[in-house]
C-alpha cells in the first residue's frame, strides 16, 4: 500500500480526463501533492477516488475543492469518503483567516489619527476618573462604614512594608554613589567637606522621593493595573457593580490611600538610607567619621529641604496610584491589553512624576526654599 499521497492524470476512454488520486489523503500527507495539484490547469472531467487508501476531512475537502475548481465530478468514493465529502461540501467559507489589515499608506495616518483622538478622549476620561474618585471619597466620608480598612491595610503591606528591602538597598547604593562621585569632584577644590551638604540636600530634596516614586511605580503601579485589569477581563468589576459595590470605593481608593501614605514614609526612609550610604563612604574615603557626618547633616540641611521632599511624596504617590488604577480600569478585550495597560501605567506614572518634579523644583526655589 502506498504510504505517500500521489496522483495520475489519464486521458481515459471517450475523451474524458480522469484524475486518479492514490494513497492516503490525510492532513499529514497532503503537503506532497498540494502544490502539484494546485497548479493543474488541464480540464478534468472526473476525479477518481478508487485508489485512495485513507481519507480524512482534509483529503475530502481537497477533493471537493478540486472538483469545484475544475467543475469535475467525483467517482468511486468509498462510503466513508462519501460521508466526509458531504460534510465538507457544506462547509464552504470565503472569509479571511486573519483580521483585515489596511495597506501601510492608509494604516499609518489612520493610526496617527486614532492616537490624536485617543489622546483627546484620554484627557476627558482621566478627568472623569478623577471625578469618580472625588465622588467616591465624598460618599465614603458620608458613609465611613463602607470604607474597606482591611483592603487598605493589605495595600499598606504590599506597597509599603514589602518594598522596604528593595527601596532601602537602592537608596543606600545611591547614597554611596553620590558621596563617592561628589567627593572626587569636590576634592579638586579642596572642598570635600561639602560632600555632606551634597548628599544631605540632594537626597532629602530630590532623589529620595523621586527614586522611591519610580520604584513604587514599577512595583505597585504595575501591580494595580494588572490586578484591576484582570478583574475587568473576568467580569469581576461588573459583578461588583451589579451587587451595588462601587469598584472605585473598594479597589481604587484603598490603593490610592496606601500609595499616598506609603510614599511619604518610603520617601523619608529612602532619604535616610541614602544619607547612611553617604556616611559610610565618607567614613571610608574622606575620613569623616560616620557619626560626625550625621551631625553635620543636621547642621547643613535646612528644614525646608525635608518639607520639599515630604510635600512632593504624597503627590507622586497619588500620581502613581491613579495611573495604575486608571489603566487597569481601561482594560477591555483580551489578555494582551492587560500587558499593554500595565506598561502604560508605569511609563505614564514615571513620566508624569518627573515632569511634576521639574515644576516643583522651580516652584520651591521661587518661594525662597532654594
Amino acid at each position: 500500500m502506498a504510504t505517500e499521497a500521489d496522483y495520475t492524470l489519464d486521458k481515459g476512454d471517450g475523451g474524458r480526463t480522469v484524475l486518479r488520486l492514490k494513497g492516503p489523503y490525510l492532513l499529514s500527507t497532503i503537503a506532497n501533492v498540494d502544490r502539484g495539484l494546485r497548479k493543474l490547469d488541464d480540464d478534468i472531467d472526473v476525479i477518481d477516488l478508487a485508489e485512495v487508501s485513507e481519507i480524512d476531512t482534509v483529503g475530502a475537502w481537497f477533493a471537493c475543492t478540486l472538483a469545484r475548481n475544475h467543475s469535475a465530478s467525483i467517482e468511486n468514493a468509498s462510503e466513508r469518503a462519501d460521508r466526509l465529502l458531504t460534510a465538507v461540501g457544506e462547509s464552504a467559507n470565503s472569509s479571511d483567516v486573519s483580521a483585515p489589515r489596511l495597506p501601510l499608506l492608509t494604516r499609518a495616518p489612520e493610526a496617527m489619527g486614532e492616537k490624536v483622538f485617543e489622546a483627546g478622549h484620554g484627557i476627558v476620561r482621566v478627568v472623569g476618573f478623577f471625578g469618580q474618585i472625588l465622588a467616591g471619597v465624598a460618599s465614603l466620608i458620608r458613609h465611613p462604614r463602607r470604607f474597606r480598612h482591611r483592603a487598605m491595610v493589605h495595600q499598606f503591606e504590599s506597597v509599603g512594608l514589602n518594598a522596604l528591602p528593595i527601596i532601602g538597598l537602592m537608596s543606600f547604593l545611591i547614597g554611596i554613589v553620590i558621596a563617592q562621585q561628589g567627593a572626587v569632584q569636590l576634592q579638586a577644590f579642596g572642598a570635600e567637606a561639602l560632600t555632606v551638604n551634597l548628599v544631605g540636600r540632594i537626597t532629602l530634596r530630590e532623589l529620595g522621593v523621586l527614586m522611591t516614586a519610580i520604584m513604587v511605580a514599577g512595583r505597585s503601579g504595575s501591580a494595580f493595573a494588572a490586578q484591576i485589569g484582570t478583574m475587568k477581563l473576568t467580569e469581576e468589576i461588573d459583578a461588583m457593580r451589579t451587587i451595588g459595590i462601587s469598584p472605585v470605593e473598594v479597589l481604587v481608593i484603598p490603593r490610592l490611600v496606601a500609595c499616598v501614605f506609603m510614599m511619604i514614609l518610603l520617601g523619608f526612609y529612602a532619604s535616610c538610607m541614602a544619607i547612611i550610604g553617604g556616611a559610610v563612604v565618607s567614613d571610608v574615603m574622606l575620613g569623616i567619621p560616620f557619626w560626625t557626618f550625621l551631625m553635620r547633616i543636621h547642621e547643613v540641611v535646612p528644614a525646608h529641604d525635608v518639607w520639599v521632599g515630604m510635600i512632593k511624596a504624597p503627590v507622586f504617590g497619588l500620581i502613581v496610584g491613579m495611573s495604575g488604577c486608571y489603566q487597569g480600569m481601561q482594560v477591555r478585550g483580551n489578555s494582551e491589553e492587560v500587558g499593554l495597560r500595565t506598561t502604560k501605567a508605569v511609563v505614564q506614572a514615571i513620566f508624569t512624576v518627573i515632569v511634576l518634579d521639574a515644576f516643583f523644583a522651580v516652584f520651591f526655589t521661587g518661594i525662597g526654599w532654594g
Partner: protein
Amino acid sequence: MNTIVNEIFGEEKPERHERFQGEYPVRVRGLVNSFGDQVIHEDLDLDVKRGEILGVVGGSGTGKSVLMRSIIGLQQPDAGHIEVFGQSMTDAEPDEALGVRNRWGVLFQGGALFSTLTVGENVEVPITQFYPELDAEIAHEIARYKVVMSGLPEEATSKFPSELSGGMKKRAGLARALAIDPELLFLDEPTAGLDPIGASAFDELLRGLKETLGLTVFLITHDLDTLFAICDRVAVLADKKVIAVGTIPELLEMDHPWIQEYFNGPRGRAAQGKPIDG
C-alpha cells in the same frame, strides 16, 4: 519534488501514525490525584473504547476535569498509570508524549482560545505546529472549512475571541480541537452555556463526526440530553473513583443512590421522555 520536501522536512515532520487499532485508546489504572490534603482520585480505573463516545458524569468537585487533565498530561498524578494510544503518559519522555499530541484534540471548558489571534488563526495553530511543511494557503483553507464545519458563521473566521459570544467561543474551541483531524477528542462540558438549539446541533455534529471520522470521544458533561442522545457509554465519578461504567440502561439498573438520583431525578426523567412525577 516529493523527495526534496522529504529531505528538507524529513527531520521535523512528525511521524505519521497508523490509526490506532487497539481496543482502548485511553486506559487509566490506579490513578491517585490529590491537592494538599484533599484527595480527588483514589485508585481510579477507566477505559475508553475505540470509536465510542464516553460520557463522564459526576457531581461538582468529583474531579472530572482533573481526570481529563491527568489523561492529557497537564496534571502529574501522585500515582497510577495512564496509557493513551498504547503509550504510557505517566512515565513517558516528553518527546514520546508529543507523538500522541498530534493525534488528539482538546476542548477546554471556557474554549481557551488564544485571545490575540483570530478564530481562523486559532484553528491554524495546531495545523502549522504539527505540519510546518504545509503551504500557508492550504493551512488557511483548512482553517476556513473547519470553522464552518464546527457550526460557526463564515464571518466569525476573522473575528477575535473577545468579539464572540460564549457559545461561539465553544464552537471555535471545537474547530481548533478538530483542526488536525484527531482520532481522540477530549471535551470538557461542550454544551454548557449553549442554547438548546445550539446544544442539539452540537450533539448532531459530534455524532456525525464520530460516525464519519471514527472518532473516540471523552466527553465531560452535565447535559442529560447529550448523555441520552449521543453517549455510547457513561462513566460515573463518585467517592473518588469511577463507580460505574456502562450504557444508560445498564446504569439505570444499578441501585447506587447517586446514580438513581441523577438519572431518575426530575431532569433525568424529562430527558428520558418519562413523566416527571410518574
